């Protein structure tokens, strides 16, 4: 399902509408069902679920964005280097990338949270690094194939400088859709890892920052008083994962 820009914009705007997680706490309003004041009811500490699900998107936008930045920046850079020059850099990339991608992404994120303390920043950088090999390999593979294509040789013939060929023809025109797909996978990785780490233990997004992982973990741990308390974050996670996973292979 190709993401319409309008949808993304709405998601971001909704996420960043003002909401103070701490002011919303009120023991009196704990575990209310869906009602007038709270369309999806409240969780076991009296906080409005609809608002928290909406604001949970901030982690996806901020941490997700940072993860994609890290994965994109490093991935394209390394991939381009290896793809364009081949030979030694390609072998070095394969060794480095191979080592990094051999470690399961969750293990890498967990070890990063262990070393640098959990939180949205560590999660973002951890997921970013875990996706670098995939992006780099995709870019290197495509560049390596294109390098020998006729139109590159022809362009050189016309006197177009190497840099311009490299930047415009190869990187932007040919690999941007490929890189976009890989960054979609990075975003999915972040959303899924955030929920998993919150359930498993101490490294998730700390309170009171709002995140779907936290909401799901607290709801399951404190008995299932209001089904929306775990239903809303689960649906939000599933929708995001489903939306960012492109339906078809981009050519």
């Amino acid at each position: 399902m190709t993401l319409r820009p309008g949808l993304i914009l709405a998601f971001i705007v909704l996420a960043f509408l003002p909401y103070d997680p701490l002011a919303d706490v009120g023991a009196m309003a704990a575990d209310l069902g869906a009602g007038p004041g709270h369309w999806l009811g409240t969780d076991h500490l009296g906080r409005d679920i609809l608002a928290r699900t909406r604001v949970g998107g901030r982690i996806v936008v901020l941490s997700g964005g940072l993860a994609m930045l890290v994965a994109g920046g490093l991935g394209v850079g390394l991939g381009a280097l290896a793809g364009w020059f081949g030979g030694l850099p390609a072998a070095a990339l394969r060794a480095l990338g191979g080592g990094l991608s051999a470690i399961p992404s969750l293990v890498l994120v967990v070890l990063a949270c262990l070393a640098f303390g959990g939180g949205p920043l560590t999660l973002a950088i951890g997921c970013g690094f875990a996706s670098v090999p995939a992006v780099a390999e995709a870019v290197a593979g495509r560049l390596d194939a294109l390098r020998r294509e006729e139109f590159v040789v022809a362009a050189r013939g016309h006197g177009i400088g190497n840099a311009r060929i490299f930047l415009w023809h190869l990187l932007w025109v040919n690999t941007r859709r490929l890189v976009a797909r890989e960054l979609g996978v990075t975003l999915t990785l972040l959303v899924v890892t955030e929920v998993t780490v919150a359930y498993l233990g101490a490294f998730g997004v700390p309170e009171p920052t709002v995140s779907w992982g936290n909401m799901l973990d607290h709801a399951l741990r404190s008995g299932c008083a209001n089904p929306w308390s775990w239903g809303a974050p689960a649906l939000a996670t599933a929708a995001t994962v489903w939306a960012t996973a492109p339906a078809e292979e981009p050519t």
Partner: protein
Amino acid sequence: MHRLLLPALLLLPLIAEAGNLRFAEDQAPALVNPIYGSTMAEARVNELVFEGLYTDDTELATTPALAESSRIADDKLSMEVTLRSDVAWHDGQPLTADDVVFTIKAMQDRATASTESGRVAWIADAVALDARTVKLTFVRMEARPEDKLFFKILPKHAFNGLPVRRSDTFRTKPVGTGPWRLALFNEDNSITFKKHDGWRDAVGIDEVTLREVADKNYQAKLVLYESLEALVRVLPRDLAMLQNNRKVELYPYQTNSWWYLGYNLNRPLTANASVRRGLSELVDVDALLAPVGTGARISGPFVPSSPYYNHDVEPTVADADEAATQLTAGGLVQDGDTWKKDGRAITLTAVAPTSLESVQEVAINLQSQLQSAGIKLDVQFLDDATWKQRVWRDHDYDLLLGQWTFDRNEDIREQFHSLGTRNFVGYKNPAVDALLDKARDATDPYVRKATLREAHKLIAADQPMLFLWTLDSYAAMSVRVKNVLIHPFYFFTFAPKWTMK
């Protein structure tokens, strides 16, 4: 590949026979060896498998276990203990005096690195006079040394001399003299214990199984589903479900544990007593307690039903104006609705252990209250290892949310004496030190009571911690288990008397 793990792979389904008591622990003990074990789960398992020279009787008075009799020397500096003659280790070998001497030497041996060495620090020397008599000499005069001879005895023949190592083969096949022997380490971290037929008394239940159930939500349900016969600690929110059920009975038991919000007295801001008092008065503790469960407020380092609790000292009550005067006296300035020090807004860091049940709810409520009072608090939840480093060694925090559990003697020395090993809030008050020393040496219970109540008053006044509450704790037992008597600290001390229909 040591032998024991291989057969476990068969994983024969553990169906509930009549004589199989299954109980749950959050985490199975990593090692079944009393000189290394010290978590509550390990203490309970050691109670099944090992025995000490003395133990508690059903009236919780000291009574001989492996010891038959003892004679204290007139100068109260040594004693001779004679062992019972009818005791056999699980592997059939007889109990000898050398075993007792070996255990004491092992715990005191530096290279063995026993975390339980504190239990034998008061013994200067141990000598085996003959096969069944041990002579112990003490560091200081001891009025009733039997009260301190509860530590578990290990078989000398199961080790090859000192130092004892954690990786000795003893870990695969622990041998004790207790009512149950350890039969099998199973694959999924559960442990099976079988009745020790050679034990000196009748054992009511043939088999006991420890199940590791990490997720607390399941533990109560598994009791409901009759997959477990015993649950050591029931969560407050599961009480209603279990109380309704006619197949389960709840046993209240006394644990002297209380929650606290500790201030780091080495940090400039919280070193100031009025700032601490002001902060304490900003917090509405009853609202914090609501999501956690039923409990009682406390005003000092004891539970309300303790003999040492000073009822004249009132718990702090949330009082915004009083808090304001205290904070101003402490050098803070209220600018609009935020508190500032030297022009900068106050931001405090609080740390809390994730292993403490419902600590997240308490922390969020606390943050919300302090934020509406104008102080920004961010909370970091630490797992056990990080907690030990950040709190015990580096004292790297402003506020600290935690819980202490004491045994029947409620000895708060380690926490509040300036030389205490667990005084990581950095509390120093010479008057309190004097009171704690006097209480330790008092021989008159009235004097000890009065002294510790005075200490309670002084500590509450200094407010190194905001003392929060103590929670009611329950064990749940299936009705099929008969003749149940629970030891408040070690749980299984009277288990041999239990029977199962």
